């Protein structure tokens, strides 16, 4: 095989490989689906464990104005956690 033929074949190979990258992935098959068992195990592992999410159990208000009204009514100071990204929902 000449150098020119090898380069040509190599080019075809690269082109086929590139085309393969643009082929739409096949639809999810049954083998790729999560089983009921996996579904339960993943949810259990991901969701907050008992005691882990105590911060979220605090009855946080989400409006400074509502906090002012409640604080005025109850005679309490306001504790504000101010964060770039909501403290209760950005990670």
């Amino acid at each position, binding site marked *: 095989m000449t150098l020119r033929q090898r380069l040509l074949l190599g080019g075809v190979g690269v082109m086929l490989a590139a085309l393969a*990258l*643009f082929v*739409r*992935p096949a*639809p*999810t098959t049954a083998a*790729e*689906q*999560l*089983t*009921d068992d*996996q*579904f*339960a*195990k*993943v*949810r*259990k*592992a*991901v*969701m*907050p464990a008992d005691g*882990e*999410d105590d911060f*979220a159990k*605090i*009855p*946080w*208000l*989400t*409006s*400074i*104005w*509502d*906090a*002012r*009204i*409640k*604080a*005025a*009514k*109850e*005679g*309490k*100071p*306001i*504790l*504000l*956690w*101010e*964060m*770039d*990204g*909501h*403290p*209760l*929902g*950005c*990670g």
Partner: protein
Amino acid sequence: MATTEFVPVCTDDWYTRRRQDSEGEFFRKMADAAGKKGENGATRQGIYVFTADGTVLGYKNAGQDAEVMKKVFRDALFKFDKLPEGKRKAGAVSVPDHGRLDPRYTRTPPTGGLIVRVNARILEEKNGNYSAGQCEFTGGDMASRDFLWLTKAEVKQLAPAKAEVGQSYPMPTKIATRLARYHLNDNTRGEPNFWAADHLRKNEWTLTVTKVTDDGVELRLDGGVLLATQADPTDADRGYEGKARGVLRWVPKKGTFDQFDVAVIGSHWGDGTFTKRGVRPGKSPLGFALSLADPSKPGETIAPQAIRNEGEYWGQN
């Protein structure tokens, strides 16, 4: 202490410091007095203690040692008790009506829509079992939280057209796109970079009716995603390949879902602008659990992290 001695409130500073309404003006004035002036529009984040009329009692950056914060709170309570009764006694301070809200920087859940809580966590897998992963970044091993919002119209589009066992149909594209782009992100170490529209290499979700009763229609959700910053995932500096399973229940009489339990598991790699610390090398398991939120709790009605760009979140751009 947060519950008994104080009125606890938390907000997203990205919105609050920009709001041109009563709440924004009150906050900026109070933060200025606390010395957190936010020059040139910079963040004013931190932990503040103040009275209903805006008198500052304490301020500290977040992320402090618990004992440091306890001292800040104790000092603030001491100052509060020393204030004249007109500033602290129950009913002594009058708070006026809020007035017009700044629509550019306020977000409220869509009326009649659905709020779905989205937890994410880094995981370890061993023999088909999953456990929490380990992370060098403090809190990076904990479950993150975000919320997926669906409009009333989208909820109806997600429902089965026919309540017949075996009927199968794809999740509406707009919902599938929102779910993948904005809610399958690694936000376990803070604000993530969201997927761009062209990062969705595969995004397939199918609903199948599995049971029909007088009370509702049970559905199974199967899904598969490949999200990557490059067309060839092996070249992508960030990606996620996962599969999903869910159990949903549509209640025709109520016109909504009363169950929305979904699990997603897959391999994630790469980091984001603000999530570089503690990133695990290579590909590692990242899981998601979706469940209906409780909209009666204010903390479950906060806006999705990605909805700062509202038009894009709703798929209007």
